[in-house]
């Protein structure tokens, strides 16, 4: 007797919980190759109210996550790499089946994503030293400028299948934002959201506090305007918004003075850089009196 397949329902990851959309909607994500156990799976389709709830969860997580030491955040991000490494087979299979790439290309993408978590983890207790500095001032003061996390960041992850790929593109967008202590509401690739949603399971089991990463699968064209206009979102990363009316998103974001990173095209979209970390920070400058002796 043949065994029945157990198709998985991929759910949103909000506030540390795997939830269905409040709208009850799902959409079909189809495989491009027959190698997966089923030909298509359902993923939850987030609504604007899910986005609203995700921002509330992300806001609640800011103080805890940004309050940890850089060293501790680095350990947590490194832990993501460790857990992801242990589940590489699942990720490679999902990528191969739903992005239509070869098994070796899928494997290479997972490896690069893991390495990228390690790379960004290393920055967590170092970027302050690089981006901050002591300022020379004409008076008896120590004057120090240090970068501080900006708060809640809405991210639109790269949408196109292929390079850099749904998992790597997602990690390139999300990891640098987390380094400084921001929390994230992210819309993964609409066509291939599974790697991102599975990565939610990695976050849930790797000491990342609830609400620090919130993953909303669904239509970026539908959800992004609400996040861009949301008064409680501090910054917007439009990395994967190239095919949307992203100038409108930028205009909506300007109403509440958000930092906005524009879309990047091509395989190098969101390539690892220190600037992606420091862009989502605010500079705090402290004046402290010097002893005159």
């Amino acid at each position, binding site marked *: 007797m043949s065994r029945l397949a157990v198709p998985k329902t991929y759910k949103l990851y909000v506030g540390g919980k795997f939830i269905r959309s409040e709208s009850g909607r799902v959409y079909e994500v189809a495989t491009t190759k027959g190698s997966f156990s089923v030909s298509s799976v359902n993923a939850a389709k987030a609504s604007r109210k899910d986005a*609203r709830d995700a921002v509330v969860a992300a806001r609640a997580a800011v103080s805890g996550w940004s309050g940890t030491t850089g060293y501790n955040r680095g350990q947590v991000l490194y832990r993501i790499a460790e857990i992801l490494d242990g589940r590489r087979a699942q990720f490679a299979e999902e990528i191969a089946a739903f992005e239509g790439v070869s098994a070796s290309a899928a494997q290479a993408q997972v490896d690069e994503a893991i390495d990228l978590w390690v790379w960004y983890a290393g920055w967590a207790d170092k970027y302050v030293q690089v981006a901050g500095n002591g300022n020379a001032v004409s008076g008896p003061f120590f004057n120090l400028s240090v970068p501080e996390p900006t708060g809640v960041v809405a991210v639109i992850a790269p949408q196109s299948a292929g390079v850099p790929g749904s998992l790597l593109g997602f990690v390139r967008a999300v990891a640098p934002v987390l380094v400084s202590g921001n929390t994230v509401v992210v819309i993964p690739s609409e066509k291939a959201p599974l790697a991102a949603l599975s990565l939610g399971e990695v976050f849930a089991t790797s000491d990342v506090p609830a609400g620090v990463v919130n993953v909303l699968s669904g239509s970026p064209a539908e959800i992004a305007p609400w996040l861009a*206009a*949301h*008064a*409680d979102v501090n910054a917007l990363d439009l990395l994967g918004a190239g095919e949307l009316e992203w100038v409108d998103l930028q205009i909506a974001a300007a*109403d509440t003075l958000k930092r906005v990173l524009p879309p990047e095209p091509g395989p190098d979209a969101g390539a690892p850089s220190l600037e992606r970390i420091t862009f989502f920070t605010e500079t705090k400058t402290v004046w402290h009196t010097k002893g005159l002796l």
Partner: protein
Amino acid sequence: METTRAGTTVAPASRALEVIGGDLTERSLRRYLEGIPGVDAVGLEARAAALGTRSIKTTSKAWALDTIIRLTDLTTLEGADTPGKVKSLVAKALVPDPDDMSTPRVAAVCVYGDMVPHAVEALGSAHDDGATGRINVAAVATAFPSGRASRSVKLSDTSDAVAAGADEIDMVIDRGAFLSGRYGQVFDEIVAVKEACKRPDGTYAHLKVILETGELNTYDNVRRASWLGILAGGDFIKTSTGKVTPAATLPVTLSMLEVVRDWHRLTGEKIGVKPAGGIRASKDAIKYLVTVAETVGEEWLQPDLFRFGASSLLNDVLLQRQKLTSGRYSGPAYVTID
């Protein structure tokens, strides 16, 4: 404590005399209260849950949000309260949202008795009789929140607050006595506090009777305590102090509203209801509005007959209002921190 003997007469409150009859004794009061039919708990909770599923949108929602603000007793009841804290509470009561002057004012500010003079002073002309957008001062009294003090302390607590200018007194019942079945003692106390609410000119401060439903354990007790509070002369029955969990819940409020409805059918008199504590989201508050309208009628949706006792609810309502006005979601950075 000595047990009250069954034949002891209790205070001759006019409502009780009318409903129960001339020989008002501990026994007749007990017989009346225990003769009230029990509550179908499953049915009550199902009814409350059904009322909570109504979808209130757009213009109805805008109306509901403004109504919630008009019905709110903006509350601060902390041991750490200071005159400055009360002053900023009053400022918020007068102008809930400085970015939108069309926001209505709340019904009252609710403070501890010793803060009443500060609240009255801060309200200034907004506390005058007949002022448009008048805001009342409500004071909790009778050894709030536990109610564990002697009768004389409770009465002077009340009369002090009234003398200082409180328009409304929120008293707690003696839950210990109620749960031990000493209904007469609870009854007498409410009657005495009501007398202490009397002002020199013969008018009375409004009396809200806090049942503290979280300590009454059963819906039957809530229903009995509601009747007791009304019979003894309460103008309002209020669910909770906010210091005990669970505080106000929808089924409990529904059962109290049913008593108020029955009392209105029986006597034509309108009693107010105030759920307090634990109502933090506009969505929850709207469920209460629906429940009131469906149980006693829409005429109860006015400050004289229905109040929310809340502190953080107002901020959530303001955020929802801002969302309706601007079309985008607002955030906690756009309302005051209380």
